[in-house]
């Protein structure tokens, strides 16, 4: 009773044809139910990391197929960080391809600014006025202008709503690194924010 169903699915498995078709159909069902609902989060990170829609689409497609191939290695817990880590690796490869070289201390490398103390740059008076509202377009471009290592933690925290521990999992770094990058990223955003306010002031 089950076998014909399985072989029907098997006929359509294409690149996954080597697998037992029944198991493949079941795995695909679980993958569709657990992983695919997070596709928007994955696509969002890809857009911010790669900067354009067509590269982001390629990366998300590659990430989805790769995630499905390695779905057996997913050991429960939250699936979103697991997917985002795969997406990030795909983006690494794309950066490497763009640079025509292996990724070293480029876009994704350890940002050298990490070492500088944050408190040196604060210039404002304690009673400075509150930040003004900026439109979504301006906020997006502020994020887009961050170096990749800072951009990714901001997107993971503010847009994908991941916890520090989950972000650490995605970027394969200790939680302490997440905290210092997030602090640095927000500090840079705040500077940009204040500059954008001045630019748009009447």
């Amino acid at each position, binding site marked *: 009773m089950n076998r014909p169903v399985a072989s029907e699915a098997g006929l359509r498995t294409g690149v996954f044809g080597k697998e037992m078709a029944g198991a493949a159909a079941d795995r695909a069902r679980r993958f569709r139910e657990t992983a695919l609902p997070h596709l928007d989060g994955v696509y969002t990170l890809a857009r911010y990391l790669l900067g354009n829609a067509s590269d982001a689409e390629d990366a998300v497609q590659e990430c989805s197929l790769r995630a499905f191939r390695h779905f057996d290695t997913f050991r429960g817990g939250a699936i979103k960080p697991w997917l985002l880590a795969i997406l990030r690796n795909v983006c690494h490869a794309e950066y490497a391809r763009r640079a025509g070289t292996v990724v070293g201390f480029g876009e994704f490398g350890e940002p050298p600014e990490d070492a500088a103390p944050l408190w040196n740059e604060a210039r404002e*008076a304690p009673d400075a006025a509150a930040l003004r509202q900026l439109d979504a377009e301006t906020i997006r471009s502020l994020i887009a202008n961050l170096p990749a290592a800072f951009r990714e933690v901001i997107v993971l925290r503010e847009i994908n709503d991941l916890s520090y521990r989950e972000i650490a999992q995605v970027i394969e770094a200790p939680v302490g690194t997440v905290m210092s990058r997030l602090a640095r990223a927000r500090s840079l955003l705040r500077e940009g924010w204040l500059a954008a306010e001045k630019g748009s002031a009447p």
Partner: protein
Amino acid sequence: MRCEEAEVLLHALIDDELDAGHARAIETHVATCGRCTAQLRDYRDMRGAFARANLSHQTPADLKRRIDARLPAPARPDRRNLLKGFAAGAGLSSAIAAGLVFGVMRTDQDSRIMSEVVSAHLRSLQADHLTDVLSSDQHTVKPWFSGRLDVAPPVADLTALGFTLIGGRLDYLDGKPVAALAYRRRAHIINLFVAERGSDKRGSAMETVQGFNIRHWGESGLSLWAISDLNADELEDFGRKFEAAQRG
């Protein structure tokens, strides 16, 4: 607590990642430090603005479809059981049953060729047999086919237009030898199959089969199929540019 420490920890405070002891310590510091107070306020405002502005991106529907189609299909009731069901269904008129069976069973010539196009495309990628003649020069690729096929296929160099010619090979569709041209667009391979076919079919059609986009068109006695995992818009662009080059 000193400012250097506070400036890292106040983010953890905003993000609700601090335990009660640390949270109290930083709140105590902020209460006595105007600079940290201003920062905490600004960072909270920024978080609020992020939350209000819609900063996420929606996955394009076309991309969702392509991904879904590349996964093994969900288990469906198979045809034989469906037929048994029809035979047993007393209230089902034979006419309706026939219509349903036709809907399930239909395999017309076009869809058979489409799935052959997909198979040939996959074969070329999996067996690492993309080209018999490896050249980005159309004047090398085109003559290679003469003597191997009755009709030399049109070969266009579209490198300047963003589609790089990789080479050509002999393939089979519908049991007949056809010309296959391989092009590259970023990391995507496009296979273009060219078959001699006495069809007057005009215009072009775009279809998605097993997750691949296929653009099919006819031109001066030839049938052409371009297939790729490239998105539909760019494959359409490829087809148009090839057609334009074909007409000269």
